[in-house]
């Protein structure tokens, strides 16, 4: 495998990303968009938001968007490489942390660390929201769907799948 191979790029990029994705896969969305759409031109805006929509629609962890990007770039191997790179390093960290974490429950550094990372991941999730909305809301009607989803999700406990069904139906019947 030479250094220009897309597989090398996928492995290196997602391997590093997994170690800074504080707060979960969704906090890494803006950076994935920056890298896959703007830097590498692997996919366009629409393919990126489609991938996110598919990952949200599919069962399982929403880190699956990584497999979709990998597949888009380099087929089945790409999907496998991207997923392993995104999960591998943090799994190893998690495995070793599992044994030591609870020993330091009351330690001041642990309390400070937890308090420090909450606002960082909040800012990143906000950034994801911004990037996704800007890419998805190309029309006023799409913007209305986004706002309506926000209102329903904040004020009710209706399952997101119903919102997706309605939004998909509106899209299908040509409202967007």
């Amino acid at each position, binding site marked *: 495998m030479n250094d220009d191979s897309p597989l090398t790029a996928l492995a290196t990029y997602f391997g*590093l*990303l997994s*170690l800074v994705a504080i*707060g*979960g896969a*969704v906090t890494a969305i803006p950076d994935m968009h920056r890298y896959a759409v703007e830097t590498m031109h692997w996919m366009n805006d629409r393919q990126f938001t*489609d991938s996110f*929509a598919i*990952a*949200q*629609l*599919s*069962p*399982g962890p*929403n880190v*699956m968007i990584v*497999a*979709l990007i990998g*597949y888009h770039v380099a087929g089945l191997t790409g*999907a496998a490489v991207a997923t392993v790179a995104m*999960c591998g390093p*943090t*799994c190893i*960290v*998690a495995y070793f942390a*599992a*044994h030591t974490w609870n020993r330091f*429950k009351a330690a001041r*550094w642990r*309390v*400070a660390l*937890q308090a*420090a990372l909450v*606002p*960082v*991941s*909040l*800012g*990143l*999730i*906000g950034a*994801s*929201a911004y990037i996704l*909305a800007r890419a*998805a809301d190309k029309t006023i009607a*799409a913007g209305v769907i*986004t706002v*309506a*989803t*926000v209102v329903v*999700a*904040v004020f009710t406990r209706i399952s*997101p799948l119903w919102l997706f069904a*309605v*939004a*998909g139906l509106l*899209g*299908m019947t*040509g409202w*967007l």
Partner: protein
Amino acid sequence: MTDLAEPERAVARPSLGELFISFVHVAISGFGGALPWARRMIVERKRWMTAEEFNEDFALSQFLPGPNVVNFSVVFGARIAGAAGAAVAFLGLMGPPMVIVTIIAVLYARYGDLEILSRILSGIAASAAGLIIAMTLKMAKPLFTKVGWPAAIAIVAFITVALLRWPLLPVIAVLAPLAFALAWVFPTGSVKR
């Protein structure tokens, strides 16, 4: 906290087979994030963990970088049966969704340009973006009720990553230590209990 359905102490330890099947179950029911389903299975149904134990492992999984529920599967599996447990839980969680998503990816590559599919997905994408906005708002509420460093850190993270489009790596390399120093010096600026 004192839900009757939840055990006072963990009642049983699962075998590797049970562990695998359970995480497969979590994976395929977990639409829109698998963690709530993991809690339901482990604490409420199987009673492998108390609510408090779950919260501790959950906090660890959130604080570690990378996908939360993936971290959780490794932490929980390791607690039950060491390296084998971690591997089994991870494979159960990731295997089936990987197969499903791959099938969808193949279909998308072939039919993604179909007018009707692209219209359906653009509707769902708009809605999915709304869900993440809603999640941001819910998380921001406790943090923004008072002026302090946590709100400032969140705003800086947002501006650098969303508006300035800086890469995540340098942003985290600077912001995480800075936030840690602030949390160390001003613990009351934190809303975390």
